[in-house]
């Protein structure tokens, strides 16, 4: 571990950076402006193998470690947060639950397409009346003895990748007689309504919808994992996802730092470049320290996971610190860009709008602090 990633990770980083620079960066502003989810680009990310990195070769994956996924998310996120979250959620929330908790048949049915990026999965946990308190889920599932089908009723909020042209299945949590359980609801199942896309502050090119499930009937073999284990299972999924969000936030913070450094060296005021004023340069020096910390926390957490060590606390620390750093970075960069930092032509504006949700999704900053406090042994 200590400080450096392996040569292979760095070689892979260079490949993803090239890909991001030529296939994503030139279009990111237009996708953001038009609220356009670029399916072809997602398919191209699939061709590059990004969606299958961490999954076993038998399903078409690369059998790579979580660190390599973080590298990919960081580099994609450095040019486009929307495509970064599409990747992070597609892998972490879409395919990962099926990989962890699915039966062989479920894996055979859903994983190969997700791994090649031909299909996206989504994870429906949050509800109108329960986000942080996801155990308060009101969605209900009951087994209809006569048809042998599960019948699901309820609503889900803010579900990433749930309404794209290539969304294949949504894992939803629902209350059953034995507690919270997870169900695989295929796209297009009668009774599943994908509501119109939200108007979001940021992540404009990422796909987010509310869902309603009304008398939504699915086959019994689409129950994911052991009935009643849903709560425990999604907490485990979120631990992985938090490291991925930390990598996404790191990409955002780096983009802002790099852009602000370049701008500070170019922009002149009062007869010299603004880099000469400590009011500017010290902010960037401090930001560089924070970015370095975010990097270390992110890859430390990934390393712990890759090496089979406990990583719950490390993941929460990484997510908390990196996402708050990303928000700080966008604020500092915008300030250094001055008026230009408020105008859509500058990519910083997009990062400014995109960053805030990092402190909210997959567990708010407050929830991360609760997780860390609990790991400290504090009675909450």
């Amino acid at each position, binding site marked *: 571990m200590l400080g450096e990633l392996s040569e292979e990770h760095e070689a892979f980083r260079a*490949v993803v950076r090239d890909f991001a620079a030529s296939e994503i960066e030139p279009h990111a502003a237009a996708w953001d402006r038009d609220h356009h989810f670029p399916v072809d680009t997602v398919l191209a990310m699939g061709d590059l193998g990004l969606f299958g990195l961490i999954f076993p070769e038998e399903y078409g994956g690369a059998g790579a470690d979580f660190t390599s996924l973080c590298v990919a998310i960081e580099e994609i996120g450095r040019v486009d947060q929307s495509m970064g979250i599409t990747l992070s959620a597609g892998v972490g929330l879409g395919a990962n639950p099926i990989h962890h908790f699915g039966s062989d048949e479920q894996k055979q049915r859903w994983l190969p397409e997700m791994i090649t990026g031909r299909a996206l999965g989504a994870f429906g946990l949050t509800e109108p009346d329960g986000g942080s308190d996801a155990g308060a889920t009101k969605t209900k599932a009951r087994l209809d003895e006569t048809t042998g089908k599960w019948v699901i009723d309820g609503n889900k909020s803010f579900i990433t990748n749930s309404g794209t042209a290539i969304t294949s299945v949504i894992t939803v949590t629902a209350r059953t007689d034995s507690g919270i359980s997870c169900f695989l609801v295929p796209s297009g199942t009668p009774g599943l309504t994908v509501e119109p896309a939200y108007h979001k502050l940021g992540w404009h090119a990422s796909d987010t919808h509310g869902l309603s499930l009304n008398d939504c009937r699915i086959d019994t073999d689409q129950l994911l994992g052991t009935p009643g284990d849903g709560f425990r299972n999604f907490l485990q999924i979120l631990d992985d996802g938090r490291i991925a969000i930390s990598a996404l936030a790191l990409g955002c913070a780096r983009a802002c730092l790099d852009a602000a450094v370049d701008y500070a060296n170019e922009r002149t005021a009062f007869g010299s470049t603004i880099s000469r004023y400590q009011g500017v340069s010290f902010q960037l020096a401090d930001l560089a320290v924070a970015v370095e910390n975010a990097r270390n926390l992110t890859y430390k957490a990934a390393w712990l996971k890759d090496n089979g060590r406990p990583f719950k606390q490390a993941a929460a620390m990484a997510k908390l610190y990196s996402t708050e750093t990303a928000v700080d970075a966008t604020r500092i960069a915008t300030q250094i860009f001055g008026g230009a930092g408020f105008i859509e032509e500058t990519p910083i504006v997009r990062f400014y709008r995109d960053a805030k949700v990092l402190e909210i999704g997959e567990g708010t900053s407050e929830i991360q602090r609760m997780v860390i406090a609990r790991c400290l042994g504090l009675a909450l």
Partner: protein
Amino acid sequence: MNVIVCVKQIPDPALPGALDSSSNTLKRDGKLILDESDSYGVEMALQLVTAAGGGEVSLVSMAPNGEVSGLRTALAMGAAKAILVSDPALKGSDALTTAKVLAAAVQRLGGADLIIGATESSDGYTGTVPEQIAEILGLPSVTFAKKVTIDGSTMHIERQTEQGYDEVTSPLPALISVTAGVVEPRYPSFKGIMAAKSKPLETVTAADLGITPVGWDGAGQTIVNVSQAEARKAGEVIEDDGETFTKVVSYLENLKLI
């Protein structure tokens, strides 16, 4: 079908280059990467081998300090093995010595049905090495290949010209140099990168290949002076005042273009 691609590893063009003031040559002591010009040759080789239904792509490269990053990239794209010639004695080698060294490396690999080079490297631009290799190995050579199809032991080449392209037929084995942009080089996958780690990569010296003298001693050139290229003059801007077309016409008339 077996193909050997000559690949150059060069300083990252995205970083500012520096001249070694004692030798007037480009400093190459940092990390080197696969010359983008050569990624087209590697891609074409991989496609030809796939189309032929068998065989493999091998690489030869000459680079300082045992540098293999660029070779690893090409191995990650799908090449099977590589020979690197790296030797402090090679410093200062001219294009002909480079060609002798690479030709010997090709022979060490046992030759191939086809040898591919780039039209020119992105950091040296002599544009002569591939043809020199062909001459040394006694092979037919076709420059500026933009499309290649193999038909048994015959190769059909579309050769880029200023007006269009020539259709050339050549027997194999042969050497071609390919122009940039003729194929879309694939991105190496993570699996490819991991696999590249354990692919055979042999490092040899000029002496191992029996090539002497090399470096400054073997060079038929001396670099006397390097100077800044003259900056391009700004073009003429014509403001549109409703009569612009007359100015454009007279401009073109002055150039005797119309």
